[in-house]
């Protein structure tokens, strides 16, 4: 088949960035990676990109196609060619570019290391055999254990774009791999650490990471699991945690969110007072519903009773999210889920990659 694509080249010596066109013939089974290999072999040996396994397990070939991160070895070219589309290939986002499609992964690895990503068994004695752990316990971290450290999630993280120091989805998912591992005895210390300024509560819940992850790790869900575990352990010093807890309180008392009180409850009275001028601006429009009389939903007693009931049933913390994973795993092969209705062709945007650093 005839393939055409455009690649954003970056020359580290001159600092020049250039969008170049490529055309070639490739076999129908070719993935993006195979196409890049053909270009590098036969047209331009200076094209730089990482690769190794070509079977979605090593994590080397993360890059952006049409502005969104993919594994080059996973993207089949045939559907793209059949659509008559010319994709734009660029390096992953949120990481400095070394050359062409190669990014500097040091910041990525530094954040991983920050999580103290090794098991803390909490004892020194040597066990003779394996620790007894049930499959159900291991299932709690099975998705996080799938992570191949490709960086696709980090590339698209909206929070990290705005706050480069955010630990990020890959690091936090790795963090949950340990917090959720019953063999690890340092969960509480970890949670204290991950609740820091650029940690769990920095996540903006854009779900780009879940969407981009080529392995189904669902880092956003891992972050939610960390949040759930933090609240379960009583770690709620962060405004994000306080904000979340107020939703629970609202649901069981008035049903609907107690919006106005949300501000002081999240930020504290002092900080809330600083927002007064802003709040008055909103209030004039009626955007600050008076907390009294409370807007109460019908039969809210049921919501309160439900809360009591589920609290006694021991699926607190991350387990509350893990319990739904069996169902969600089935989506991929039932007709019910993930149905796509075809979009009319939209012009691809040719975004230049951001300057590094």
């Amino acid at each position: 088949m005839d393939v055409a694509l455009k690649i954003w080249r970056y020359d580290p010596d001159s600092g020049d960035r250039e969008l170049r066109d490529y055309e070639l013939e490739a076999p129908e089974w070719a993935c993006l990676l195979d196409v890049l290999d053909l270009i590098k072999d036969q047209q331009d040996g200076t094209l730089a990109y990482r690769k190794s396994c070509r079977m979605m397990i090593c994590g080397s070939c993360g890059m952006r196609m049409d502005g969104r991160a993919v594994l080059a070895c996973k993207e089949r070219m045939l559907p793209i060619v059949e659509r008559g589309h010319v994709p734009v290939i660029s390096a992953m986002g949120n990481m400095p570019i070394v050359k062409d499609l190669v990014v500097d992964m040091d910041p990525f690895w530094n954040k991983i290391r920050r999580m103290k990503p090794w098991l803390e068994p909490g004892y020194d004695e040597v066990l003779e055999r394996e620790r007894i752990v049930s499959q159900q316990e291991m299932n709690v971290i099975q998705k996080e254990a799938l992570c191949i450290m490709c960086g696709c999630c980090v590339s698209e993280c909206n929070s990290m774009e705005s706050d480069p120091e955010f630990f990020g989805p890959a690091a936090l998912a790795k963090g949950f791999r340990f917090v959720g591992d019953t063999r690890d005895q340092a969960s509480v210390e970890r949670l204290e650490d991950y609740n820091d300024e650029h940690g769990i509560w920095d996540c903006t819940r854009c779900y780009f990471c879940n969407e981009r992850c080529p392995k189904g790790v669902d880092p956003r869900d891992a972050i939610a699991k960390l949040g759930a575990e933090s609240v379960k352990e009583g770690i709620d010093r962060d405004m994000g945690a306080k904000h979340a807890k107020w939703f629970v309180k609202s649901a069981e008392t008035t049903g609907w969110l107690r919006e106005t009180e949300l501000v002081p409850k999240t930020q504290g009275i002092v900080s809330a007072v600083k927002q007064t001028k802003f709040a008055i601006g909103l209030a004039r429009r009626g955007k600050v519903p008076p907390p009294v009389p409370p807007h109460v939903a019908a039969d809210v007693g049921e919501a309160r009773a439900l809360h009591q009931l589920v609290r006694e049933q021991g699926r607190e913390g991350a387990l509350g999210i893990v319990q739904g994973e069996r169902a969600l795993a089935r989506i991929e092969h039932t007709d019910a889920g993930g149905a796509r209705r075809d979009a009319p062709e939209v012009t691809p945007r040719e975004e230049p990659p951001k300057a590094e650093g």
Partner: protein
Amino acid sequence: MLIVGAGCAGMRAAIEAFDAGADVALLSKIHPVRSHSGAAEGGINAALGNASEDDPEKHAFDTVKGSDYLGDQDAIQVLCDEAPGDVYQLEHWGAVFSRTEDGRIAQRPFGAAGEPRTAYAADITGHVLVHVLYEQVMKRDIPTYEEYFAWQLVINDDRCQGVIAWDLLNGGLKTIGAKTVILATGGAGRLYVGTTNAYACTGDGMTMALRAGVPLKDMEMMQFHPTTLAPTGILITEGTRGEGAYLLNSEGERFLKRYAPNAMELASRDVISRAEQTEIDEGRGVDGNVLLDMRHLGAEKIIERLHGTRELAMTYAGVDPIQEPIPVRPGAHYHMGGVDTDLDGRTELEGLYAAGECACVSVHGANRLGGNALMETITYGKKAGRHAADWALTHTTIEVPEAVEADAERDLKVLLDRTDGERPWSIRNELAETMHENFGVFRREDQMREQGEIVSGLRERYERVVVDDKGDVFNNDLTQALELGFLLELAQCMVVCGLARKESRGAHARPYDYPDRDDENYLKHTLVRWVAEAPVLDWKPVTMTKWKPMERTY
């Protein structure tokens, strides 16, 4: 001490060396977690006894028989004895194994094993092990020369004293002196079109050792994995057969009943690959493949235990194994041969060690059991790490002569300066295609001879190979050209050894000229050295302790 290669063997060696108190560093042309060990799927063998009554003795016998009696029995005994402890150590470090009903490490049946002893983590065991080892490397903060392409060994005073490597990120040759060097660079599947191996598997360490005068053992023994996808060779794990999948020909027949009536789909890999190739050659294939049928396993089991396999089949073969069988064929997978070492990973050259796939102790002989490779990387990685560390701690000097660096710089300059010649890809593709054709599952005298000539011709063409990228930053055009150089010399050695072994044993199958195993004349290892730009053949006896060779049927 320096460890070249940061897969399971390299990282396990580094951890052991660090814990022994040595000043150790890892060096790898790719980031450690990108290592091909991570692509291993099915599992790691050890006589844990969690699925049935088992013991290291049985494991050892299965391995010896599996090796078609070419394996060194003392090395095998050691592996099987130490395996359980080494697997428990991995679990203690946090490896995410699948579990039995009573919470112990789950074990599944695997090819040519008498008991189910392959400990697994769904179908991503290699991935799980690479990550747990890297976590322990990070915990110890072991320095790693990431994206350094090792090119030559530094030999001085009859010792290996370091490595000369190309710094991929910044450019330039860097020399790293070390009292001991462990090669853990994996195999050379890229010699073949249709291989399970990553692009990085180009036999680097084996050729570096070869060029340094160290002999390689059993080089003709390349294992062809029975279930790989066409045309790429992407691996579909033996674990599918461990869970009960069938292999069918175009007539829907479970054809293995004619080749291995007892073990059927769980016979030894060489037996199955030969059976498949025969079926395909005799016209009972489907477009050059046979069919791996898992439908009867049911959706639940496939999603729970073979999720990765399903992803691979859907992405690369366009089939959902829940609904349809997967077309598979034999693909180059694992090199039983490699750098000749003793039971501590030591080579003939003082200061140089090897472990993992690039080494040949030999624990696998003429054919490897599935699940034993990961075990070898851990157990022998550990031993090499320990011994190399002890040596380094008890010897003091390192001396790297300037001439060595200067020579390397000069040679590299010749390659980089060349502006007209042939691009590596045409040589590389021709090598892979002809090896597949002439040195594959079935071998013949005339084809092997022809292959020897072809490789010689390719090596001549390689003298004129041209690198497009003359830059410093991330020049993998250069490193890929150097990798091709490694492959060519290995190919030349393999062919010589293949011709010399006039029998069929394990993965070396010569059904047309020497269809039987000849213990009287060939119960010995081939040993090849590089002298004056050519392979020179020798032999080495097999160590036998308990088991005498018997007829090998499954």
